């Protein structure tokens, strides 16, 4: 990367190193360590320990039989331990290697996300620990998803990753990323910057499953720029405990007729604090978005945000936020926001927060289900994701991941 550009990014990052985030509890970065031992490269990830593989599998990353994957990337702590592809037309590399390989990559570095957004983005720049680079070549269409796993093993580590995803013109790319921790109780911090560039006519589905532990804090910083006729489909599933998570990814539908859809499924138990939003800026003519979030608390605190801004003619956006409070504790704070800056746009939202309707429980009981069975059926229905545009196999996989976690909920 041109030295001038690097220096400019570093300067901006240093200036923002103490800048608190706009949302979420302020994390004291000083309580985390930033260096970890090197991890050996593993050419055959099926040889990783069974426990590790299981944790990754719970986050949607399959290592024993990668035949249903177009490529695989695994990073443990600060070190990429595996990257490979199985299908033509897609590149999967540690981002450090990609930066060496492609001079032009510097044009994408901190373009969708500003390096000085807050102290977390600044920290990722100043103490960067790699990340992944996934690129679909022009016109390529991968059948299976690329999978990526960011795995935290060292206690009190701050994992700072910077990921770049590029879908070149008319390509189709599916990605599953799972994040997991080795320990079920050690504290850790995951800071992940992800920048998506979806070129003209390209389609990207990005499905992220988080499997942290009750002591981990997480601050993803993501943004996507979608060009003309491009589509970005973002699915996020968080059903396992986490201490504190705040994220508010932004998609800018820049080109005409670009579209973005967000689906999130969030579950917070006692002790978990989530602040999860989705923002879509509709700048191109005829751009569209739909944001759907479903949140369940069994005692945790959830802020479910949605923001749609329409700045061009003929744009259409809808926000739907539904929250279910199970049990006596727990808070769901739904914040749907719409901003229109010209006439002729169509933005709407609906939000509902409450407990399970007794009428629905009784309806199912009249069919012979016990109260517990009826409740479980309603919760399962609430969490059902039928995602338009997602390949059926991937949809089924996502549903399975949700159903596995549901067991803990009942």
């Amino acid at each position, binding site marked *: 990367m041109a030295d001038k550009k690097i220096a400019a990014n570093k300067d901006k990052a240093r200036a923002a190193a103490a800048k608190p985030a706009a949302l979420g509890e302020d994390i004291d970065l000083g309580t985390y360590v930033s260096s970890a031992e090197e991890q050996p490269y593993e050419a055959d990830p099926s040889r990783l320990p069974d426990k590790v593989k299981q944790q990754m599998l719970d986050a949607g990353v399959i290592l024993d039989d990668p035949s249903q994957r177009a490529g695989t990337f695994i990073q443990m702590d600060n070190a990429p331990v595996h990257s490979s592809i199985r299908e033509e037309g897609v590149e999967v590399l540690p981002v450090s290697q990609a930066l060496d390989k492609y001079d032009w990559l510097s044009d994408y570095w901190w373009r969708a996300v500003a390096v000085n957004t807050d102290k977390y983005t600044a920290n990722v720049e100043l103490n960067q620990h790699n990340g992944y680079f996934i690129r679909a070549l022009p016109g390529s269409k991968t059948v299976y998803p690329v999978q990526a796993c960011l795995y935290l093993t060292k206690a009190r580590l701050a994992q700072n990753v910077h990921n770049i995803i590029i879908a070149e013109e008319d390509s189709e790319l599916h990605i599953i990323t799972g994040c997991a921790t080795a320990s079920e109780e050690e504290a850790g911090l995951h800071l992940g910057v992800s920048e998506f560039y979806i070129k003209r006519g390209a389609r990207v589905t990005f499905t992220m499953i988080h499997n942290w532990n009750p002591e981990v804090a997480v601050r993803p910083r993501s943004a996507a720029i979608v060009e003309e006729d491009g589509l970005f489909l973002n699915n996020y599933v968080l059903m396992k405990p986490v201490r504190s998570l705040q994220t508010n990814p932004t998609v800018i539908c820049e080109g005409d007729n670009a579209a973005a859809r967000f689906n999130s499924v969030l579950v917070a138990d006692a002790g978990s604090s989530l602040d999860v939003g989705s923002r879509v800026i509709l700048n191109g003519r005829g751009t569209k978005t739909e944001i759907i979030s479903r949140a369940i608390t069994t005692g945790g605190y959830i802020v479910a945000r949605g923001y749609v801004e329409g700045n061009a003619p003929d744009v259409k956006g809808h926000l739907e936020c*539904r929250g279910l409070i199970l049990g006596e504790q727990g808070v769901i704070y739904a914040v749907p926001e719409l901003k229109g800056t010209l006439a002729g746009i169509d933005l709407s939202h609906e939000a509902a927060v409450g407990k399970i*309707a007794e*009428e*629905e429980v*009784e*309806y*199912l*009981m*009249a*069919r*012979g*289900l*016990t*109260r517990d*069975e*009826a409740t479980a*059926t*309603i919760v*399962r*229905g*609430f*969490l*059902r994701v039928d995602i338009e545009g997602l390949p059926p196999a991937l949809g089924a996989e996502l549903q399975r991941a949700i159903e596995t976690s549901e067991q803990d909920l009942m």
Partner: protein
Amino acid sequence: MSDVALSIEQLAVEVEGREILHNVSLQMKFGETHVLFGPNGSGKTTLLMAIMGFPRYRITRGKIVFQGKDVTGLPPDERARLGIGMSFQRPPVVRGVKTRDMVAACLRGKESEERIGELAERADLTDFLDREINYGFSGGEIKRSELMQLLAQRPALTLIDEPESGVDLVNISLIGELLNTLLEKDCPIPDRKCMGLIITHTGHILDYVNARTGYVMCDGVIGCEGDPHEILATIREKGYEECIACFLRRDKGG
């Protein structure tokens, strides 16, 4: 044990602290279908809800004996498992729960794709199996879906709330067909193991389903009991006002 399969004895039911039913009694045998007429607000639905066992409909006096067992204190799911089923007039939408899931739940352990498909075909709801239950359903679709679920559940006693309300003519003959299957109308009476209690405001359903006994509910009591067609003829001719007036005259006289 007598051959009476459902016996409601001097039932009083309260909803939100207000007594809606006072001293209601009726008896049914296997194979029988009874219909409940009555003006809006007379307590018909309350009676069905109380038989099904919804806690909001609190039984304050009397009892419900079903197949020799006092079910008065049982929750709806236990009653359902004993063989009581209900077709709701306005069932709730349950988001994310598909029609298929409901039919499967009703089949209780005997579910199979074939069976579900067959029931859906019979109710002309094949395209509805993967839709969320009751979400955006028309009046006729709701009724057919309710009856499809009951055909899966196969209750000995079926409670049916206004099968004809909000239903067009094409739908009503299919609904009549489904009801007749549910109530085993094609079996000789002595062989039937099912019975039905149908609420009807207009009596229109009697053109499609035969019933043995009719009742007129007035203000929370059963005002009269008799041949359903005769009762319907009177209601059609003179209206519910006359039924109520007649009942009041007898009530005073008695």
